[in-house]
């Protein structure tokens, strides 16, 4: 856990990230960009049941949350992961998780005494 990133992040910063990730299709897109590096819409549509239009719409949601960015290359747009906001959201969850860890340790001692 990085302290600097957690201090910078607050609920208002991370909520759009969680909201954007709260969808199976978008999580799958993130996973594909994570494994495959920057990909075109055509590549992202291959092997998917979704239309190009639907994928574009989901990428738009991810882009507005700052999770991906698209760069025009000729007639295509190449989409890549932008991990900064994801890192920020993770740091924030880590902090909450750590607080729970500590509290539950105290609870265990409390009930076992």
């Amino acid at each position, binding site marked *: 856990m990085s302290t600097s990133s957690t201090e910078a992040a607050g*609920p208002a910063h991370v909520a759009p990230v969680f909201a954007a990730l709260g969808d199976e299709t978008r999580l799958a897109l993130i996973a594909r960009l994570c494994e495959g590096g920057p990909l075109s819409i055509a590549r992202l549509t291959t092997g998917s049941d979704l239309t190009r239009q639907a994928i574009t719409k989901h990428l738009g949601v991810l882009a507005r949350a700052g999770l991906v960015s698209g760069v025009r290359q000729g007639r295509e747009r190449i989409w890549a992961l932008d991990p900064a906001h994801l890192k920020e959201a993770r740091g924030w969850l880590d902090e909450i998780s750590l607080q729970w860890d500590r509290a539950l340790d*105290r*609870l265990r001692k409390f009930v076992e005494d």
Partner: protein
Amino acid sequence: MDTDRAPQSRVWQALTRAEEFGAWFEVKLDGAFTPGAHVVGTVDSKRYGQLTVDFMVERLEPERLFSYRWHPNPVGKDDFSKEPTTLVEFRLSEVPGGTRLTVIESGFDKLPPERRADSFRSNDAGWAEQMKRIERYVDK
């Protein structure tokens, strides 16, 4: 959290009696946990000074489920009352000789969107394995 030394009744009491909850959670509470109650807590944080934490109690199903809503990590501004909350659920079950307590905090995706701070770009690779943790949980 698992304990093989405390029965469900003991853990239930530590969770739902305000004085006991206050002792391990390290919060001073101004009332009792009853369904629908709004209990105000005060926490002394080394990092942030004195913080107010509001517990909006939802359900108490004896020795099985205790839940409340609150504003997670209430730092950075004074008034969170208008903001959506997360739901914290404590679920108890029996394990041989003791108790299993599962804590689930959910609803992080409903917190209010606001202008995001500009953050530096980084190429840290470790986040991928954390994906499974994302969206809606703190589960111990």
